[in-house]
């Protein structure tokens, strides 16, 4: 492990916090109080955390429908996220976005699109804005393997390469778009690997190993900040739950026998915990204390959300235009 011990422990804490939130949502979803579709990122925590750990608060990210992890990893406000799931006025989008439309502009999270691939050109434009204003910020877009099917990725990457924009394209290859495996939609995976590195720096990393993700992200960020251009990081990971909603979808039968179990053995959060314990960087008591703090924080956020007001009809027409 090349990451400094204290930093690695902090990355673990962030991943655990994202996982715990997902599990809390799952546990409460059947109560029908969160009346919004949820796309859980259980199994993909290392991608969000590894990438965002390489960023500064003033760097930008564009997220997608499976965005709880991106939001928290970038430093988004937990209470405002949970309140948004409960469609409250105190939610980050004041109850008009729901789970798929998180935002926290204070920390460079400028929104999430539920149109697959929709955030890719926006992030490219943010990179252009950084360049044109002489800012040394970078812009990151998180998108899935499904989004990598879309032509807009080609168009955006082409521009970013042409203008050497400070944009990092993070492909979260979780193997599926809904029930369609990536191999049924792309002949041999992404075509953006293997270009000359001066045009596009590309990497394919184990997205369940936060150190690997972080290392690739740091390299991409350094390149972007120094004006050398865009990077493309494919993180191999796995969607451990159904496409939307709570719980496993193993009963649907579209995943090959044993696949879930195989990926469960590579669970990014559990594995990192085991490695930290084995290396003596963390002990069970510290870990338990960490879990307790997170649980208390979630208790507080859920209580805040449930006690928050629901937006009324008088709020319906607000914000159509910026005033």
């Amino acid at each position, binding site marked *: 492990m090349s990451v400094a011990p204290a930093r690695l422990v902090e990355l673990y804490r962030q991943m655990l916090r994202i996982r715990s939130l997902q599990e809390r949502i799952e546990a409460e979803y059947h109560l029908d109080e969160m*009346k*919004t*579709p949820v796309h859980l990122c259980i199994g993909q925590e290392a991608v969000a955390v590894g990438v965002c750990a390489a960023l500064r608060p003033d760097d930008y990210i564009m997220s997608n429908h499976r965005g709880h992890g991106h939001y928290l990893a970038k430093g988004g406000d937990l209470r405002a996220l949970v309140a948004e799931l409960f*469609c*409250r006025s105190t*939610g980050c*989008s004041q*109850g*008009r*976005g*729901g*789970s*798929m*439309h998180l935002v926290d502009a204070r920390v460079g999270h400028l929104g999430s*699109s*539920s*149109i*697959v*691939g*929709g955030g890719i050109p926006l992030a490219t434009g943010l990179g252009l804005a950084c360049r044109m204003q002489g800012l040394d910020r970078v812009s990151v877009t998180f998108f899935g393997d*499904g*989004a990598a*099917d*879309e*032509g807009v990725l080609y168009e955006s990457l082409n521009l970013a390469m042409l203008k050497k924009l400070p944009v990092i394209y993070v492909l979260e290859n979780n193997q599926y*778009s*809904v*029930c*369609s495996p990536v191999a*049924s*939609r*792309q002949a041999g995976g992404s075509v953006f690997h293997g270009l000359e590195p001066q045009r596009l720096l590309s990497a394919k990393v184990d997205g369940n190993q936060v150190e690997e993700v972080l290392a690739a992200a740091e390299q991409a960020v350094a390149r972007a900040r120094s004006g050398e251009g865009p990077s493309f990081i494919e993180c191999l990971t796995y969607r451990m739950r159904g496409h*939307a*909603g709570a719980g496993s979808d193993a009963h*649907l*039968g*579209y995943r090959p026998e044993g696949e879930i179990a195989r990926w469960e053995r590579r669970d990014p959060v559990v594995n990192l915990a085991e490695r930290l314990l084995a290396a003596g960087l963390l002990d069970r008591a510290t870990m338990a204390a960490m879990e307790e703090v997170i649980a208390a924080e979630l208790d507080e956020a859920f209580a805040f959300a449930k006690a928050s007001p*629901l*937006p*009324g*009809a008088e*709020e*319906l*027409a607000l914000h*159509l235009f910026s005033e």
Partner: protein
Amino acid sequence: MPWTKIRAELDEPDYGHAGDGGGRRLDYAAAIREALDQALSLDPRVFVMGQGVDDPAGMFGATRDLHLKYGRERVFDTPLAETALTGVAAGAAMGGLRPVYFHNRPDFLFLAMDQLVNHAAKWSYMFAGAVKVPLVLWACIGRGWGSAAQHSQALQGIFFHVPGLKLAMPSTAFDAKGLMLAAIADDNPVLIIEHRLNFRQKGLTPERPYTVPLGKGAVRRAGDDVTIVGISQMANEAYLAAEELARQGIQAEVLDPRSLRPLDEDLILDSLAKTGRLVVADSAWKTGGVSAEIAALAAEKGLDLLKAPVRRVSCPDLPTPAGYTLERAYYPGAAQIVAAVLELLRP
């Protein structure tokens, strides 16, 4: 209720159009599926494509398991590439096939706009009929449970604007099947826009293959006092509104145009000749949309028939909010239609 959990559990009123022997009461999704099944078996040129058409959900049931019967050569999943695949489908149509391209939501059709509007819809005209584009696109409007601004758009107004594109919006199981078969048989690009809430319905549907002609609307309920034109799912709301109005002594005539292009203008004008009053209920935005066009029809061709101004019931000109309290304020239904009629008749 999450959109994935919508089940067919409401019986449609028997509108009497099932004709010969009435048919069976069929789930809305099963009616579409039956149309596809029959088209695939009767016409080797027909094929079905779209994201997830062969997955366990099978497009809300409309395509479920068809790939098992016809194979994945003719019923196939696609990459997420709406722009190119719309052109691919149009090209396949030019090449002699009859593609039916399924989209989960009309929102995703925005990615298909260039190939649909700049190409498919113009090919016949631009080349003086030299090349046909017998293409069917299908999409289903989402609603509820935080579908929010990008998964709930009722975009009929935008597609209605496009010459060269036929547009159907069924609201019964019978029509969903008959319009699908009519669209597949048509030599032009046809867009079918469904509404997710209609998938709660079961309706009388004959087993035989039949078509509902594009451009032929239906009278859902006869009445002399006011004409209510209901588009898509709002046709069902209009029927409920008419039942309530009847309890208050008002007889509303409920019309379902079923297809918007071509639009059954005579149906609307004939009804206006009888009632002199018009309420148009649409599931979409108001400005520049379908309700505006139908109001313009009344003004241009039926002004002397009108005893009162036209009223429109539609969604406010806003993106759809996710939150359920906001959704409640956003969506109109039977109550708003009743109120609009009462405003006309008992001002």
